[in-house]
């Protein structure tokens, strides 16, 4: 029989205002096994903890129930308290009477009744608890960063600087990401390439960093400290070891039909190409869909002209398997498709463009060599209209419900850059709200208005129609209570951003959670913003939510700091709440093995004495170092041979019984 102590916390008024804590103490003190019960204003305070320690000693408690907040909040606190009083930490149970009770109920009587039920449920379970001892697992001292944009690069650099190996897996042929496509950055207007390319070079030359470009993560198994990741290195059709990056092949390629992704489809590229001048690695790739050699078997001009003989049409995808201690997700974003927003005529008028397309048009390395020209006829525009919130803050189902956060600032940037370079161009910005919280952000926006004379119109555009080569932008001017039509030459849509399409698939592989918009969810929105709830998985950049470059870089370094903290350890304490198989009951059917997501179960032939005779049976064995205690095996086992330590079937049933009593 256990000797159980129950400690009911008031949490100031958080619990005590809604739950009659004295009534809980009184009710629970009659429960089987309970020898001591008390309440206290702040159980997690030093005073509360010392009360617990004292009671453990005075009453020889074998286990304690703390009725307080969510175990996510203070379970580890009270486990430490137990340890310091000589009690096994797994003899501590938490009854969550705050988040699951006092915070969600208004009626004091109802809340008190529920708190009593939750307390006695914890007691019922604790009566069946057994002391558990955690094992240890080693940490692989290498990190994986998925995504090679500014977020991934920054995280990798910081980890590498700390002396750990780090691999970057990037699906496109070069690292750099979206930032490499940008012209200037707000609020300082320095050139994106000037600040990004040195980082790209650093990443490439750092001996601790290993780049897998044109590669994708195909499978992830294992757990914190010991992930096994399969990476597919897609065939570039180039022998990267001997390629000098001279670029002759890209000039000789006769195919010119492919849309240049880097220029947002505003120009064409060859079938063999290097995405941009500062690409890293500076090795071309053959787009097999476009390549004449791959399509018809003829051509091969690149091969003939390559001075290094680096072209390899027969190259195959390569599968690499690597071990990692930690994984950082930095998969970034893309602008949404505008198919639901044809009122802005994006698909019908070439002079209606997205902001990212404008970045390319403004960029010296872009399709117009940095000259602001209309895509339809290559003439300079006289009037430009910017439309904000295209697809953001949209609850109609056409766009995204959230604010994309960066559009207000980059639109102000675009407006200012245009005015700076072409003072004669009229620039109008339709806005709903201008959101500029950030260091020097509002000053920046106001400068666009006050110094550069950008015309900000509060209102939304209802329709863009083309007439005689002009774009008629019909919209609201809410402050003048007017409907206005601006004859524009170009319209720029501040298109909402969404997570890269790879996020969903990756989240499944990592068993990391994503929200309804496919943004990765953080472990705690305030206190653990760069960690995924899945141990060993960290988040960096826009994959977690819209953010600008400084925020992204800050988060990238924060995620790196978390990873460094993990890799600095030699061993991780493993969770002792793992599965175990009762070989007397095991049928050997392999069902548990099939469902185990960690590959922790294997089968052995064993001599079993059953009903007085010996026989050789095929039975399941759990590798406790690999088992993560998810419990999937226990629910599929038909004979009930699998059980989870700390959460045994009996304990769960005892809890259910206590609730239903």
């Amino acid at each position, binding site marked *: 029989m256990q000797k159980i102590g129950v400690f009911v916390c008031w949490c100031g008024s958080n619990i005590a205002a809604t739950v009659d804590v004295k009534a809980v103490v009184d009710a629970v003190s009659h429960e089987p096994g309970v020898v001591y019960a008390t309440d206290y204003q702040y159980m997690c305070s030093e005073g509360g903890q010392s009360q617990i320690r004292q009671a453990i000693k005075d009453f020889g408690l074998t286990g304690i129930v703390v009725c307080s907040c969510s175990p996510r909040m203070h379970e580890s606190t009270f486990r430490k308290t137990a340890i310091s009083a000589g009690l096994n930490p797994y003899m501590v149970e938490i009854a969550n009477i705050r988040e699951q009770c006092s915070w969600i109920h208004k009626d004091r009587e109802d809340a008190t009744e529920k708190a009593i039920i939750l307390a006695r449920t914890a007691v019922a379970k604790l009566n069946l608890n057994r002391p558990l001892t955690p094992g240890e697992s080693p940490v692989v001292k290498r990190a994986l960063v998925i995504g090679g944009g500014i977020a991934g690069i920054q995280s990798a650099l910081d980890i590498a600087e700390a002396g750990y190996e780090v691999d970057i897996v990037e699906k496109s042929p070069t690292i750099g990401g979206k930032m490499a496509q940008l012209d200037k950055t707000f609020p300082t207007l320095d050139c994106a390439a000037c600040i990004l390319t040195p980082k790209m070079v650093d990443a490439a030359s750092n001996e601790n960093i290993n780049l897998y470009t044109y590669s994708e993560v195909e499978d992830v198994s294992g757990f914190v400290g010991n992930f096994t990741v399969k990476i597919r290195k897609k065939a570039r059709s180039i022998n990267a070891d001997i390629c000098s990056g001279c670029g002759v092949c890209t000039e000789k390629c006769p195919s010119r039909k492919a849309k240049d992704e880097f220029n947002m489809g505003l120009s064409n590229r060859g079938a063999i190409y290097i995405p941009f001048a500062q690409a890293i690695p500076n090795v071309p790739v053959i787009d097999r869909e476009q390549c004449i050699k791959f399509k018809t078997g003829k051509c091969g001009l690149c091969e003939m002209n390559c001075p290094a003989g680096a072209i390899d049409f027969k190259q195959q995808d390569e599968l690499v398997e690597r071990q990692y201690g930690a994984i950082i997700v930095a998969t970034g974003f893309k602008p949404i498709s505008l198919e639901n927003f044809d009122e802005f005529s994006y698909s019908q008028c070439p002079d209606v463009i997205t902001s990212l397309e404008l970045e390319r048009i403004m960029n010296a390395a872009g399709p117009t060599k940095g000259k602001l020209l209309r895509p339809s006829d290559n003439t300079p525009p006289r009037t430009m209209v910017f439309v904000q919130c295209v697809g953001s803050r949209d609850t109609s189902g056409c766009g995204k419900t959230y604010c994309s956060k960066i559009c207000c600032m980059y639109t102000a940037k675009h407006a200012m850059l245009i005015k700076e370079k072409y003072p004669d161009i009229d620039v109008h910005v339709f806005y709903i709200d201008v959101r500029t919280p950030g260091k020097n952000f509002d000053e920046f926006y106001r400068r666009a208005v006050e110094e550069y004379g950008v015309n900000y119109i509060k209102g939304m555009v209802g329709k863009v129609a083309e007439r005689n080569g002009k774009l008629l932008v019909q919209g609201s001017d809410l402050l003048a209570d007017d409907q206005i039509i601006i004859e524009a030459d170009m319209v720029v849509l501040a298109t909402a951003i969404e997570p890269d399409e790879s996020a969903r698939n990756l989240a499944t592989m990592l068993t990391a959670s994503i929200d309804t918009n496919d943004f990765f969810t953080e472990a705690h929105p305030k206190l653990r913003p760069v960690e995924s709830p899945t141990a060993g998985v960290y988040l960096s950049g826009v994959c977690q939510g819209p953010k600008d470059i400084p925020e992204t870089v800050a988060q990238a370094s924060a995620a790196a700091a978390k990873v460094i903290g993990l890799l600095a350890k030699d061993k991780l304490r493993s969770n002792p709440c793992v599965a175990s198989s009762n070989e007397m009951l095991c049928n*050997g059917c392999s069902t548990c093995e099939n469902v185990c997501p960690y590959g922790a179960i294997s089968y052995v032939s064993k001599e079993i004495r059953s009903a007085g005779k010996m026989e050789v049976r095929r039975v399941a064995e759990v590798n406790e170092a690999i088992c993560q205690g998810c419990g999937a095996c226990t629910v599929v086992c038909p004979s009930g041979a699998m059980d989870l330590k700390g959460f045994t079937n009996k304990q769960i049933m005892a809890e259910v019984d206590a609730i239903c009593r």
Partner: protein
Amino acid sequence: MQRIFGLIKDRVGALLADGTVDRVIGWEKGEFLYDHTPAIFNAEDDLVDLVYDGFCASNLSKYLIDESKKDGKILALLKPCDTYNFNQLIKEHRINRDNVYVLGIECRGMLDIDKIRALGIKGIEKVEEQGDELYIQTIYGDKTCKRNEVLLEKCINCKGKEHVAYDELVTSGEDIPQVESNRFEDVEKLEAMTSDERFAFWRGELSKCIRCNACRNVCPICSCVECVFDNKDSVVASKANTDEFEENLFHIIRAFHVAGRCTDCGECSRVCPQGIPLHLLNRKIIKDINEFYGEYQAGQDTNSLGPLTDFTKEDVEPSIITEKGGEK
């Protein structure tokens, strides 16, 4: 039927004689002409007791769990539908395939004695099967009826005449008529009910249960080393002693234990002395699995992962399951 029996007997005799197999599992005559019983035959001479006719419904695959672990090779007479269970048990590593010689035998569908009696044919002394006709001698004179009028429920919804596992086939070469049916028809009727109606239906049926365990004992899938209902440490067993639990939950827990593994062999309903339509519980789950994860037949092969133990990104979202499983 006589012809195929002759062929089977000859072949079994030959395989015993040449030492290919050491034992045979088949059927012998039971107490009544319609309850032939599974039996082991150790020598050629014993085969005088072997029978095969329309009353050999029992599925022999389950016996192979124990029999295949013994020394020597056993020959098993398996009808097409029995081979699905054989495969499923192979998949679950319960049968030692090396020790079994599967003689796949032709089947025209098995007969339901209750349906024959329901036609007013009583005092049966002999049943002779000729093609699709039955000639029945009774103490009240000779009667005839059509075979397909008196098939067992499981045979009306026959999975087909193909064996999915065998070492050798014995066939008569005659054409076997297929019965057209929709096995989910009754499930659809249940689904169309309100939850109250459905609850009343199952309470009515399950309250007939006398916990004889026949359904569990005959089920080829319900073959755990130790059943949770017999294990006093399993928590479930102790619950089984409290009031009304048996009729309410025994069968439902059993249906969940065989979910994704049940081949729909129909033995549970066939052997139930109380006539509870237990197969409907299994079929409801089979139908749901088909709808949620795509068509799946347990026992079709020996290596695929069952839909309930295989996780894919295409798996149906829980919200859809809740929606479809909810009140109609």
